[in-house]
């Protein structure tokens, strides 16, 4: 769900930038940033803030601040960029969590009153679109049963990898290999390459 750079957020004019430095180059940088980091920030923020809409706000704000920092020359080494994006997103999440802390606690109390036990919703899987789910579901169904069962044990039932290996009667190394093959086959079925 990566938005196009142009319409998602305003980048604003840098105060001293001459008019001749056309936005074209900056828009490209923004597109690259969005493409590379948007989904990462979204997952990162959803885990902390427990809702996707807030996570997308964080992603927008993070990209905006990172671009500002790039233009101001505050990120010299591009190798440090992922770390910089990470720290920026983390900072924004912390700010939000602090300010909404009181609100969240009240909601939690209300939820606890109205249900037998509180349960953290599986909000991370909500990040996967219905269409993507359907595509992956179909691909899983086409996998050989042992491959499918292995991936479901690990990722759906969240059985510890050591226990999965024990259950299947194989070594940890053999499990790694099998998992890699199963993921590769799944990717092929989805028409994608494995990096």
């Amino acid at each position, binding site marked *: 769900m990566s938005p196009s750079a142009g319409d998602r957020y305003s980048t604003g004019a840098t105060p001293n930038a001459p008019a001749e430095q056309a936005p074209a180059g900056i828009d490209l940088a923004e597109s690259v940033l969005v493409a590379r980091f948007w989904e*990462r920030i979204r997952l990162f923020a959803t885990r902390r803030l427990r809702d996707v809409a807030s996570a997308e706000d964080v992603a927008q704000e993070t990209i905006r601040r990172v671009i500002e920092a790039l233009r101001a020359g505050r990120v010299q080494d591009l190798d440090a960029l992922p770390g910089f994006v990470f720290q920026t997103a983390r900072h924004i999440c912390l700010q939000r969590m602090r300010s909404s802390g009181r609100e969240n606690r009240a909601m939690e109390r209300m939820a606890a009153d109205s249900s037998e036990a509180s349960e953290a*919703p599986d909000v991370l899987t909500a990040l996967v679109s219905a269409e993507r789910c359907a595509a992956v579901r179909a691909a899983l169904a086409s996998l050989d049963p042992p491959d499918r069962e292995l991936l479901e044990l690990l990722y759906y039932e969240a059985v510890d990898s050591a226990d999965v290996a024990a259950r299947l009667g194989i070594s940890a190394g053999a499990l790694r290999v099998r998992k890699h093959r199963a993921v590769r086959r799944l990717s092929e079925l989805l028409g994608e390459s494995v990096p």
Partner: protein
Amino acid sequence: MTCEEILDQSIEARYVAETLSEEEAEAFEAHYFACETCWASVQRALEVRAASGTPVVAIAPIRETATKLPRRVASPGRWAMLAAAAVVVAAGSWLLTRGGGPPGSDATTAMRGATDTLAVVVTMNGGTAYVSWSRARGASTYRARVLNATGDLLLAREVTDSTVSIAIDSIVPRPSGALFVQVDALDQLHAVLARAPLTRLAPFAPAKSP
């Protein structure tokens, strides 16, 4: 945290299941911001997790709204009392449904021995649905599914408790039209032991602050 460690321990699996400590989770996050391989790995883990646990049995298209006239069936008495007590709690609007599902529906007859029903209570608060249900004997887990009016599965959660909260606003793409929740009690083999009738997730104005 290195790629080696991540591969060896399937860290991405524990991350999406949220069983890592906060420190471990953050270390993994710092890693996947920089590493394409591990980023692809966690995306795949999340997708498999999201796509798994869906019914093998096709859900019959839903052509009518959920709430039917309640039928007298063997009632879990304690649940009825709890539900009645809960109604007086001013926490939003309550939608209480009981009774059996539509007789002869494809979905019902496709399940082996699914004669028991679950009672379901739904509270809507803003964009979140709080769903609670009666427990079923022999159940290992409960699965709550959000469906649209044509029976498409939008979201599924499987839990061991008898309650779940679902952020409706987080369903993407945003669904239009009526939404329903269906709760199944599952045994260890994921066979359906009991099923609650489809319950409409009615939009509701946010509760007034006390």
